[in-house]
């Protein structure tokens, strides 16, 4: 998400599930939808039935790969090299979609002369900080302050030429050396996919954790994005870059800011240092162009929704109540790794663990456990007694030595409560209660609500409590038994004066007259009654024939199904491909024919007249200030570079063949003893390890390892190893083996299969063949099934995984680390 | 006037070690049967989805019925072929046939998943089912045999009128018995005709019905010889050496015919028997060792006229029939490749106890009913 935002403007799947059926060529890369998003294969299969080609790029031959026309086995963590190679191929052979690139991307923008890239580093690197000063990563501007452009794309400093130069090093030989993909396979891949760079062809890329869980995760997705943009595959039906979100409502959760660095609707969280006042925040964070120029309206409406009466213009709408960034170890904020680093250092007293199971899913579990032990109290809200809830009696520890007080609150599951869930395709879908929860079980909403009321009571009683007003004045009226519809209505937003629901976010104001809990959702509950709840809409009509189903649920923003859809038509408003028309300018009628909700300014709100195509052609990516898709991401919006560059994983058995910079220079390194890393090419840990999911299990396991039907299908922890490694080690399928990393060890059954193989790569002269092993990470030590016969053991793969994260998102590098493997 | 009962043979009523063993076996079997009923087949047998049929079907049902084929064979010999000289062999044959079927029914009942539903085929019909036919034939034939035994009992208790009545309709019973036996003896083979794909080529023959039928005659005849010799030993009687050699000649002829049938069958179907593996080994043992060999032995007058020779020849022939039934039902059967089957303790005990029970009942009936002329207790 942190790469799609800077590139296109929004961090979300650009198209949606059903739309996969419209594609001519699909790349599944860094995800495994057959196993992890099975229902997506309904649409992928439909596309295949219509003749689409399917390409799977993965280190492992997965169940998705089993359905592919082309399987490309690449060494984990080398996507940038592969996609860099494809980008190079496209540019070298003029396979890009010229008109699209010129009109809709920043290819023609001219970059400051100070910008450079040399020996693996972009300009502005500060070694001591392991960070870039990104001031040179910017456009050269004219006297009007606007970026200079060269629509011929010839200027040596235009983005296009820089891009060409940057990726010129990614030759097929280099691709093979870095990724292990043989050149002939690379050419087949290039031929198959680059064929979508035509107006009448649509190609899509699907990705998930195989792409993101790397120290270069954001840039990996950037490399996918650049290829897609060059081929003109963005904003069209059957195209896009589709992040397959994980948990059923993870999209909703991020929309609602279950992340440390944003507020609902992706409003950046203010920081103590940069934004002491509301004015600072709004001045600094509001761009002058693009849709984000409306940010003050969204932000103030959010403050109004939260603090109601207490949020007044004279007190900056209670901005001072808002907690700010700037805490956390090394000022990194509380993303996952820093949170646990801080916890391990004793900086955190209590943890409410809400619907998650870090004792299995977190990285570097031994570190996680040591952090949890430092807590005074831990409250787990879950359906099951998770590993986290019993971390104090995990295998190998004496409970008496752990002082943490643990509470387990029984939570209602999704079928026992009403509410909405948002899917990857941004569809907000209402769900009903199927059965009431039994016993003392309560919904999460109930718990939060009661917690809020209790806090209000406690703060009310303690006049000296710090931050007292922020709690006391919080809007908190959702009924005695909290009503999800009241919450939904607040999220949609209302006019403060008459409490009337707002039609959508276009009605939001920055003067305190509107309140809105999450601006991007505004419009999904535009009236007072349950019948107005568009998330519950279930109309199956599909007027476009493209599977947009506008009457089914509500897709944010404003029920738009395919975002950036201005790009589906040429600058004159004529669809590139009439069969895939989403919007069309009808010159005669002087009107837009709208099959999807236009993602551009098509109507002048003042005059109520329709805006001719020329204007929107200037800014088809409305969320970005420059209005164009960013092949080059300026200003450090991606901290580790404006272009993707291949670096090796932090733990890696190969020397980077592309540059002397071995690993991402901008990632933060942690210094605590438990977060140690193996050396580069560490002889003690000669194999690459990667972790993956299984259809049969869900995540950290409680949801499936407690169910006999699921458990019987995948009963035991295993590790996939190649027949060559098995032979070398004298191991047979089913043997127990011990896998060790510098951080921990785990027992697993050897699963000998041709689906994994060794990789032969490395710069010329340094080639080497290294085996890769792959471990599912679902097993643990609690539940009906733990992963092995011995309940006194911990079968969690994350005992091995490293404490390094992406430079931007801090997502742990679950997908590449080094291990050793021996017969147990 | 009290009937005087003579002691007929030395040791009668004495508790001999053999009897102790037999009674113990029966008791053990009864307990096992109870356990089987309460805990189910899975808990007590080694049967599985891969081997739904095991020892009880192979031995109690298939082999048992074949060995009890003496009943209809003797009936045909005496009443149809009118070979009256073999009459002394008739009654023991009837008794052993009856007991054979009785025990077979007990065995089968235990083998059924739902023993108490054994009567279902009587009212729930599936006329296209071979097993349905077998069920009916066995039921009716057992009834015929029961009447046979009843007649003996009536004789014993001097119910002359009733005996007379049965004598009159006896031909009907004989013919019914022969028809029923022909049908079910061959149909038991036909059960396997219906699973050709799971049967080894060695035994999967369209002619399995006739082969089963003829081998049941062998089973019956050899058992008659064995019974005569063994009961003579047990009771200190004289074996019927006047007729047994001739009877054995008959057996050898049937064996030769059977041998010819098998060879023709294998040849006609073009099955290669000269392969070195377990099924082929068992097949050759069966064909050469237990059909060819006794046929040869019994065709030699010297063998036929010696008790030992008869015992050996008939013994091998009877064993051959048992082996054939095991071969057809187990050696030949290839369900799941990776599974094998060996009967459990309970299966073996119950089978042994059935045999033991059979011997004890045979002993009881021969002593109390007019079976062997010289053993028959007649008053005063």
């Amino acid at each position, binding site marked *: 998400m942190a790469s799609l935002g800077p590139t296109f403007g929004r961090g979300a799947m650009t198209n949606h599930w059903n739309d996969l059926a419209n594609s001519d060529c699909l790349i599944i890369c860094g995800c495994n939808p057959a*196993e992890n998003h*099975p229902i997506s*294969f*309904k649409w992928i299969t439909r596309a295949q039935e219509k003749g689409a080609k399917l390409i799977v790029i993965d280190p492992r*031959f997965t*169940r998705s790969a089993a359905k592919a026309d082309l399987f490309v086995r690449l060494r984990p963590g080398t996507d940038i090299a592969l996609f860099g190679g494809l980008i190079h191929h496209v540019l070298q052979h003029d396979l890009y979609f010229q008109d699209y690139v010129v009109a809709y991307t920043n290819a023609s923008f001219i970059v400051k002369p100070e910008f450079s890239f040399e020996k693996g580093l972009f300009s502005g690197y500060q070694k001591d900080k392991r960070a870039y000063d990104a001031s040179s990563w910017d456009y050269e501007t004219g006297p009007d302050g606007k970026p200079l452009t060269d629509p011929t794309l010839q200027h040596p400093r235009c983005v296009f030429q820089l891009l060409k130069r940057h990726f010129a090093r990614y030759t097929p030989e280099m691709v093979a050396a870095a990724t292990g993909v043989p050149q002939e396979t690379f050419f087949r891949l290039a031929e198959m996919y680059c064929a979508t760079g035509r107006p009448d062809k649509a190609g899509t890329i699907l990705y998930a954790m195989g792409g993101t869980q790397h120290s270069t995760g954001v840039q990996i997705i950037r490399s996918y994005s650049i290829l897609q943009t060059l081929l003109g595959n963005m904003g069209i039906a059957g195209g896009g870059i589709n992040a397959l979100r994980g948990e059923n409502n993870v999209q909703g959760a991020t929309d609602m800011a279950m992340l440390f660095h944003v507020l609902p609707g992706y409003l950046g969280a203010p920081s103590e240092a940069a934004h002491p006042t509301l004015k600072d925040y709004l001045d600094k964070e509001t761009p002058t162009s693009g849709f984000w120029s409306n940010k003050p309206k969204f932000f103030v409406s959010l403050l109004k929704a939260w603090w109601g009466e207490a949020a007044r213009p004279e007190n900056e709408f209670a901005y001072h109540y808002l907690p700010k960034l700037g805490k956390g170890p090394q000022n990194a904020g509380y993303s996952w790794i820093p949170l646990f680093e801080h916890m391990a250092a004793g900086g955190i007293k209590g943890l409410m663990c809400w619907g998650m199971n870090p004792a299995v899913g977190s990285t570097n579990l031994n570190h996680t456990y040591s952090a949890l032990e430092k807590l005074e109290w831990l409250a787990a809200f879950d359906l099951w007694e998770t590993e986290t809830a019993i971390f104090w009696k995990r295998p190998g520890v004496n409970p008496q030595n752990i002082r943490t007080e643990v509470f387990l609150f029984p939570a209602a599951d999704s079928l026992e409560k009403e509410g909405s869930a948002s899917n990857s395709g941004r569809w907000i879908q209402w769900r009903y209660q199927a059965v009431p929860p039994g016993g003392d079980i309560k919904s999460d909403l109930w718990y939060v609500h009661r917690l809020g009321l209790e806090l209000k009571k406690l703060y009310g009683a303690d006049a000296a409590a710090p931050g007292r007003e922020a709690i006391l004045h919080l809007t908190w009226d959702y009924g005695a038994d909290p009503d999800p519809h009241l919450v939904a209505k607040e999220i949609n937003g209302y006019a403060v004066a008459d409490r009337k629901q707002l039609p959508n976010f276009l009605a939001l104001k920055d003067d305190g007259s509107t309140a809105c809990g999450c601006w991007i959702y505004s419009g999904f509950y535009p009236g007072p009654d349950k019948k107005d709840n568009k998330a519950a809409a279930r109309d199956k009509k599909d007027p476009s024939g493209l599977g947009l189903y506008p009457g089914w649920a509500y897709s944010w923003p404003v029920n738009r199904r395919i975002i950036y859809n201005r790009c589906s038509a040429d600058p004159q408003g004529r669809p590139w491909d009439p069969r895939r028309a989403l919007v069309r300018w009808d010159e005669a009628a002087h009107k837009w024919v709208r099959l999807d909700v236009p993602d551009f300014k098509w109507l002048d709100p003042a005059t109520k007249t329709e805006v001719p195509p020329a204007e929107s052609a200037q800014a088809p990516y409305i969320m970005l200030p420059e209005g164009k898709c960013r092949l080059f991401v300026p200003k450090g919006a991606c901290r580790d570079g404006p272009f993707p560059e291949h670096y090796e994983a932090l733990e890696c058995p190969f020397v980077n063949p592309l540059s002397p910079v071995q690993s991402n220079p901008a990632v933060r390194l942690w210094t605590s003893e438990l977060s140690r890393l193996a050396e580069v090419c560490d002889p003690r840990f000669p194999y690459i390890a990667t972790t993956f999911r299984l*259809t049969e299990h869900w995540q950290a396991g409680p949801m499936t390892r407690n169910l*006999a*039907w*699921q*458990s019987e*299908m*995948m*009963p*035991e922890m295993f590790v996939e190893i190649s027949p060559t490694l098995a032979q070398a080690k004298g191991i047979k399928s*089913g043997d127990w083996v011990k896998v060790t990393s510098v951080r921990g060890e785990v027992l697993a059954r050897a*699963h000998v299969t*041709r*689906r994994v193989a060794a990789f032969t790569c490395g710069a010329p002269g340094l080639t080497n063949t290294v085996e890769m092993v792959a471990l599912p990470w679902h097993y643990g030590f609690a539940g009906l099934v733990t992963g092995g016969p011995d309940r006194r053991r911990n079968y969690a793969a994350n005992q091995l995984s490293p404490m390094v994260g992406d430079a931007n998102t801090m997502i742990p590098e679950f997908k590449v680390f080094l291990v050793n493997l021996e017969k147990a | 006037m009290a009937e005087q009962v003579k002691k007929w043979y030395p040791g009668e009523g004495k508790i001999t070690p053999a009897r102790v063993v037999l009674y113990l076996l029966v008791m053990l079997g009864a307990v096992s049967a109870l356990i089987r*009923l*309460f805990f189910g087949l*899975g*808990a007590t047998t080694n*049967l599985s*989805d891969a081997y*739904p049929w095991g020892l009880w079907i192979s031995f109690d049902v298939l082999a048992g019925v074949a060995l009890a084929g003496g009943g209809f064979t003797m009936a045909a010999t005496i009443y*149809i*072929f*009118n070979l*009256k000289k073999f009459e002394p062999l008739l009654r023991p044959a009837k008794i052993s046939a009856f007991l054979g079927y009785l025990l077979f029914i007990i065995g089968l009942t235990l083998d*059924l*998943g*739902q023993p108490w*539903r054994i009567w*279902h*085929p009587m009212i*729930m*019909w*599936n006329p*296209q*089912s*071979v*097993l349905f*036919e077998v*069920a009916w034939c066995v039921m009716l034939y057992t009834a015929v045999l029961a009447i046979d035994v009843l007649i003996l009992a009536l004789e014993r208790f001097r119910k002359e009128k009733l005996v007379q009545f049965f004598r009159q309709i006896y031909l009907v019973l004989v*013919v*019914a018995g*022969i*028809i029923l036996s*022909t*049908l079910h003896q061959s*149909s038991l083979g036909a*059960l396997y*005709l*219906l699973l*050709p*794909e*799971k049967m080894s080529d060695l035994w999967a023959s369209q002619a399995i019905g006739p082969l089963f039928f003829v081998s049941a005659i062998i089973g019956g005849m050899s058992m008659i010889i064995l019974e005569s010799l063994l009961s003579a030993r047990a009771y200190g009687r004289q074996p019927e050496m006047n007729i047994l050699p001739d009877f054995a000649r008959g057996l050898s002829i049937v064996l030769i015919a059977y041998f010819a049938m098998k060879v023709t069958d294998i040849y006609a179907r073009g099955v290669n028997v000269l392969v070195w593996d377990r099924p082929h080994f068992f097949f050759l043992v069966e064909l050469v060792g237990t059909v060819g060999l006794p046929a040869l032995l019994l065709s030699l007058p010297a063998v036929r006229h010696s008790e030992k020779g008869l015992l050996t020849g008939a013994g091998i022939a009877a064993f051959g029939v048992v082996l054939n039934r095991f071969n057809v039902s187990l050696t030949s*059967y290839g*369900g799941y490749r990776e599974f094998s089957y060996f009967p459990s303790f309970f299966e073996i005990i119950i089978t042994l106890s059935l045999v033991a029970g059979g011997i004890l009942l045979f002993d009881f009936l021969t002593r109390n009913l007019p079976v062997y002329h010289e053993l028959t207790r007649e008053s005063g």
Partner: protein
Amino acid sequence: MSKAMLIDTTKCIGCRACQVACKSWNDLPGEPAAYSETWSSPRYLSSHQYTRIIFREAAAPDGSLRWHFIKRQCMHCLDPACESVCPVGALKRLPEGPVVYDDGRCIGCRYCMMACPFQIPKFEWGKAVPLIRKCTFCAERQAEGLAPACASTCPTGALLFGEREELLREARHRLGTAPERYYPQVYGDRIVGGTSKLYLTAASFEELGLNHRGFRTDLGEVPYGIYGRAWMSKVPLVALTVGGLAVGLHYLNRRLAAVQARQGDKEG
């Protein structure tokens, strides 16, 4: 017209949702299991497992890796062996397609298990009052106008439920339009006289090594029910012949004996 299911294994992603849906609909328990070399688990059909996905890694002709997922369950034969052998008529093919089982009739003889050419009926070995269990083709759902649980769960449409004739046409259509995808055969169209489960596969069952694991290719096209009926049709004739011969021979031999006796008298 009867219902059938077209199982296009080339569209199956091995997600096993069908396996779980079947358990859910039929209320079947999950069981303790251990690691399986192929991932197929549980390893066999059983009275608790009416269907399972078989995973098969196999090399394509060009040596590249292929991974096949093949669903297995009762084939619902058009002329089922199981129906023809059951002595009490507990198994019956409904005209609509499903081969169903009547709990109340079964005596537990297990002949259906022996006779089924696809080794489908399974026995409740663990119970003292055991029954036969197998896929029911969700006959109760069909009766309510619903598709079988597995088919309605399948995300990819690998399990297509419909009229047998139409599905056969569809299958042949697929073979015709995408010959490179398929092994040229609809398994089930004629084997054992035809089944209601029709398979399209990417490779033959021999290549997949499944011809001895429930997908035999040597079963022929003779409807399996015929074997039993052919035998049974001879029963009256055999009975009459044997009976006639017996009675005839009885009188003949008696007469011969009488004649011989008289001759003996004369001669004597």
